[in-house]
């Protein structure tokens, strides 16, 4: 279980927290080790349309960021790495 107060930093930390959400909240059914940074989340049905809405809401809350609607596109949510990169970009522009 990845908890919010776990000390994690940088992109690796962001990826781990996202991975934790997918396992805990979107019920990733397989071993966590298979949930790699470059696993295609949409094609593998890890994220469906409702799950994406929850993920966006969670990211905004978890990382205290504001994700613009125009950024909610497959290119930014296709993999854990892409999501972490989006979070990183938004954090840098604050």
């Amino acid at each position, binding site marked *: 279980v990845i908890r919010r107060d776990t000390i994690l930093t940088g992109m690796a930390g962001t990826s781990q927290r996202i991975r934790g959400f997918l396992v805990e*909240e979107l019920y990733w059914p397989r071993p966590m080790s298979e949930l790699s940074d470059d696993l295609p989340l*949409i*094609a593998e049905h890890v994220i*469906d*349309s*409702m*799950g*994406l*809405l*929850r993920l966006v*809401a969670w990211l905004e809350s978890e990382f205290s960021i*504001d994700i613009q*609607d*125009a*950024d*909610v*596109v*497959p*290119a930014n*949510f*296709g993999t854990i790495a892409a999501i972490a990169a989006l979070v990183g970009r938004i954090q840098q522009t604050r």
Partner: protein
Amino acid sequence: MTRRTGDTAIAPHPDGLDEEQRELKRSVVEFAHAELNRDLDRRDHEAEFSRDLWLKCAALGLQGLPIPADYGGVGVRATTIAAALEGLGYGCADNGLIFSLNAQMWACELPILHFGTEEQKRRYLPGLCDGSVIGAHAMTEPGSGSDAYALATTATPTDDGWLLNGSKTFATNAPESDLLIVFATTDRTLGFAGITAFLVLRRTAGLEVGPPFSKMGLRTSHLADVFMSDCFVPVDSVLGSPGAGMAIFNTSMRWERSLILAGAVGTMQRQLERSVRYGRERVQFGQPIGRFQAVSHRIADMKLRLETSHLMLYRMATLLDQGLATDLDAALTKLHLSEAFVQSSLDALHVHGGYGYVTETGLERDVRDSVAGKIYSGTSDMQRNVIAHHLGL
């Protein structure tokens, strides 16, 4: 403590508006009373959309409420829009017209404003605001309603654009439309991630609009099928980017679910006023029927629903203005207001007994119109799904 009794107790309190918003609301009520209710029984019976009333609304600035002045609109914040639409619902008994106005604002204008290129905004928004262009939104298909992203309509790339093929249904304003936002899939295997939105002119070869559906309520607003057969659209017809269809649709739905029933709050206040007045005036068994708890409690519940709906609406509008609105908030708002509107409409009808059931009082029309609120923009069941999903269920 300020005492509020009788007529002064009917309106929601506090209204939370500043003086400018209050004045706007008053002016919309006066406009609606003066201009929008004429000949409504006939228009409703004959299911007639009125372009004349559409243009009058545009002249007042209603279609342009959410659009910045640079693009021909009024450009006011969500709380001000809520106030204007609440006034519209109070003064205008034509719920179909109100629905058509909302459908254009939230499902056509707003996606262009948020996702369009500068060129697309300048080309389409001024006409949508001044009433010369009517916009429609073509998402739902015969095989995809609540499962909104299971689209069968395809967009196939060509050298210089896209070919659209497929059919849409329940497209509000389609029969009168000049411009449609059409959602199509560029890759069915990607599901929701493969959807792209296109701006399509009604006159485009290969696009046809069916006749308006005959329906239970909102009869002055038209819904129709839309058919596309090798309908070619140029590259610059893409709204946003390929694959951004879901984001566009979700943005549109968040605003629509948040504000489309603002008018219903005004209508619920009108229903409450009429019911209180009738309860005081109508005498049976030697006393006003409002003295009977079977009637007065029904009206008390109407008051409670009006207050909670008003609170939910302005809470939502404030969240939108603060940039804090979520899909959860929008679902809660839409669910509560739509269900309150149906119940308030039924209660007003029952308070008036047989008179409520006949057409000339307009109360039966509100019942027919209100039911649609539990279906359009995502059914009540789907709103509960969204809420539950956000609760981690």
